[in-house]
């Protein structure tokens, strides 16, 4: 089947004009997702793209797949219903930091807790763009916005922490301007069975321009990001000469080689570690002391809700004597009036 599906990016583009601001990070993410979809070997009609409200949630209109642009915060719940109703579909939720973590926080954590098999692509630009520049649940403390003229007085959510806290099985991170890496991460997320959360560090060119620049700038990318791969040592830097070690239970950046650490001392990334302690530390790494972790940080195969739902139905059908509504209505305590 897979061989016969020769899709390209174009097969996933809709006729609608893309209306994000010129220079918005969303354009690149759209391309990366379309490329990933073309590679997945999934029938075009089996994709369903569900979004909430926000700039990024316009996404389904720019896709040629089945799409549903829903209401603020509820995309995770709606996507859950779509997947459970038809588990053969490949369901993608497109959401933002406000949509998923503020108004939709409850649905976000519960979808993750249940481990329903769909992909949550979380566009994190740390601002409310569609309402023109108010702080979001991921805005850094002290940041000045239209609703925080003296700076915010609250700490932000770190999406990966939330995913781990909710018992999440898959978490990955990528940056909007790194199309090739994003595409790889999206494909990994799609192939994983369970709720896959991908945090995309995305630039809002109008209301929060440059918010991720220190991380995302291609010139310093190799120094400021570490691209994690399962089973490979945690090495980064322009010369691949820096690594992550653990000392006294804490992560540490070390120089590899002369006068520094040996390659054997460098931690090897284990995305499948159920415990998640080390993954938690990786999620928390921040500039300037650490590079920011990119790639698949956690991917722990676990029981999948929609599969368990189907299994229970199959088991009940196999065991029960009731196979139709007529049998149900005639079962139990009935009597006949003659």
């Amino acid at each position, binding site marked *: 089947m897979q061989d016969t599906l020769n899709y390209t990016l174009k097969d996933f583009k809709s006729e609608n004009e893309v209306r994000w601001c010129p220079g918005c990070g969303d354009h690149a993410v759209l391309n990366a997702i379309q490329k990933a979809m073309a590679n997945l070997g999934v029938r075009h009609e089996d994709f369903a793209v569900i979004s909430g409200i926000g700039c990024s949630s316009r996404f389904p209109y720019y896709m040629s797949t089945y799409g549903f*642009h829903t209401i603020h915060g509820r995309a995770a719940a709606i996507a859950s219903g779509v997947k459970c109703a038809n588990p053969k*579909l490949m369901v993608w939720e497109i959401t933002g930091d406000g949509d998923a973590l503020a108004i939709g926080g409850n649905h976000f954590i519960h979808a993750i807790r249940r481990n329903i098999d769909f992909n949550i692509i979380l566009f994190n630009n740390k601002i409310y763009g569609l309402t023109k520049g108010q702080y979001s649940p991921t805005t850094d403390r002290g940041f000045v916005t239209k609703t925080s003229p003296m700076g915010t007085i609250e700490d932000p959510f770190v999406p990966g922490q939330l995913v781990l806290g909710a018992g999440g099985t898959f978490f990955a991170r990528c940056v909007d301007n790194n199309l090739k890496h994003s595409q790889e991460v999206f494909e990994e997320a799609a192939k994983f069975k369970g709720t896959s959360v991908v945090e995309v560090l995305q630039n809002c060119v109008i209301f929060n321009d440059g918010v991720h620049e220190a991380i995302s700038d291609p010139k310093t990318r190799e120094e400021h990001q570490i691209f994690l791969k399962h089973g490979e040592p945690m090495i980064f830097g322009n010369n691949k000469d820096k690594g992550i070690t653990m000392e006294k239970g804490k992560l540490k950046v070390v120089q590899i080689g002369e006068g520094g650490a040996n390659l054997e001392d460098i931690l090897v990334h284990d995305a499948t570690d159920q415990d998640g302690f080390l993954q938690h530390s990786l999620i928390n790494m921040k500039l300037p002391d650490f590079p920011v972790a990119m790639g698949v940080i956690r991917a722990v195969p676990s029981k999948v809700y929609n599969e368990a739902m189907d299994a229970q139905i199959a088991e009940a059908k196999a065991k029960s004597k009731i196979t139709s509504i007529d049998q149900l209505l005639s079962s139990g305590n009935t009597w006949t009036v003659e």
Partner: protein
Amino acid sequence: MSIETKVIELEEVSIRFSGDSGDGMQLTGTLFSDTSSLLGNDISTFPDYPSEIRAPQGTVAGVSGFQIQFGNKKVSTPGDLAHVLVAMNPAAVKANAKFMNPGGTIFYDSDSFNQKNFEKAKFTTDDPFTELNLIDFNKVPVPITQLTREALKDLEIDNKSILRSKNMFALGLICWVFSRPLDYIENYITKKFGKKELVLESNLRVLHAGYNYAWNLQHMTPRYVVHPAPIEKGLYRNISGNVATAWGLLAAAEKAGLELFIGSYPITPATEVLQALSERKDLGVKSFQAEDEIAGICTTIGAAFAGDLAVTSTSGPGFALKSEALGLGVIAELPLVVVNVQRGGPSTGLPTKTEQSDLMQTLYGRNGESPVVVVAASTPSDCFHYAYMSAKIALERMVPVVLLTDGFLGNGTEPWKVTLLADLPPITPRFAKDVTTYKPYKRDPKTLAREWAFPGMEGFQHRIGGLEKDAAGNVSHDPANHQLMCEIRRDKVEAVADMLPLLEVVGETSGDLLVVGWGGTLGHLDTAVRELQTKGTKVSLAHFNYIKPLPANTAEVFSKFDKIVVCELNLGQFVGYLRDKMPDYKYHQFNKVQGLPFTIHELSAHFLKLIAE
């Protein structure tokens, strides 16, 4: 049986079982009513319980009651007032005195009538009956606690378990008084506790102890006989409104050839709908207990988008939380059934009591012009039919349908002549068929319903959403288009009238007074109107099950009566709607918001007064 017993033959009798909410009164009442219907009586039941699962013992707030009326003719209500009260403590007497028929019989656990319990029930004297002015009642003290203890004395069983089986003593006693055999109850207990021998043994012993005690006591109390009711031939079962709702939805799914999805959040008194469907995985039901009410309807919307018969169940406060998402269902034009088992409001209100006060919320409680079809069931068993019809309308007209029931219907039970699938009308979902002409919002010119294509169907890929769109399904902010689309969505709901039955009149089609009701008040209104009719009063009843749209002949029915009175368990919501939709008539209104059903007596008195005015 050598002892002579006074046997009284009755047409119908109403019994109320009452005790602490932990005393097992609901089970006692249910077992008694099941036994009665198996004997061929027509029955109607009404559980009346507090919202606290275990309110402080012995207090009036903690009293849980279960009323059943059974008779040898059609029984439409649980009875205004009980003929017999079983009271497990003084608080139960206090809570129920006002629901007693003058001259009725009160069986009470004399062991619990002590100073401590008088104080808990806030009696100021040690004679509760005099204090409540229950002078003309036949009061039968029974040392239930002591006799239960006695029956179980040689079993190794703790005190708590002994006290827990007191309800079986009361049940056995009442079974003798009303000439009910014990075999059904014995079977039930054996099935339930088969594996726990001690529990089984103790329950059976206490049940028989109660029965035998009454037999020995018969010189003190009359024995009642209620003969079977002459009812239509066929297969019968007892069914509650909530289970009937669940099963009606199941029947619709099977008829339509669809899988059934329910996304819901537990809420009193609607939870049993979710439970009853969760039990039916054998029929392929996908039940999803959501994290909140909003996720309940949103998972349902997702399932509707993906091609299932999708339903969600709730009660008033939960319905409020679902409003925004229901609006999405309206603009996306997805087939969706929302069941609202109404309860007393506003806010948390009276969670365990019945009311009809969500009508305005259902009709208008959303942002924007947001019309939905509104259907109301009117008896516990016809919840099956109206749930089925709600699904049929949703699937054939691509529109959200709200089914209103209420706590009285949802928890109430009655015997029901089983309807088999072959006898139900067909359901033809509007599946999209032609890829070449498909557009998401292309409509049937007559019904205005769009076609349903869902993910997985090759060639029908499309996008829908909460934004306004044009006829082709593209997002549109065009002013004239928005008005057009609002009008289309309105007209689509109004067009549903062509598939609805005409409004029927109980009695003559003209007269002095037309009684108008809707939903769960049917039993009471029908009984009151028919009683007055037999006395020659020119009164008729028009009862609505379809609220939006209204049946096509509504105006014609209204025009033939001198006076119209709209009776509802709220402060006048349906009457307000009628004044808006049918402004040519003068409407009197009769309203009650006490968390209780109407009584026949208060209705009849009001109707007579209105005619005389």
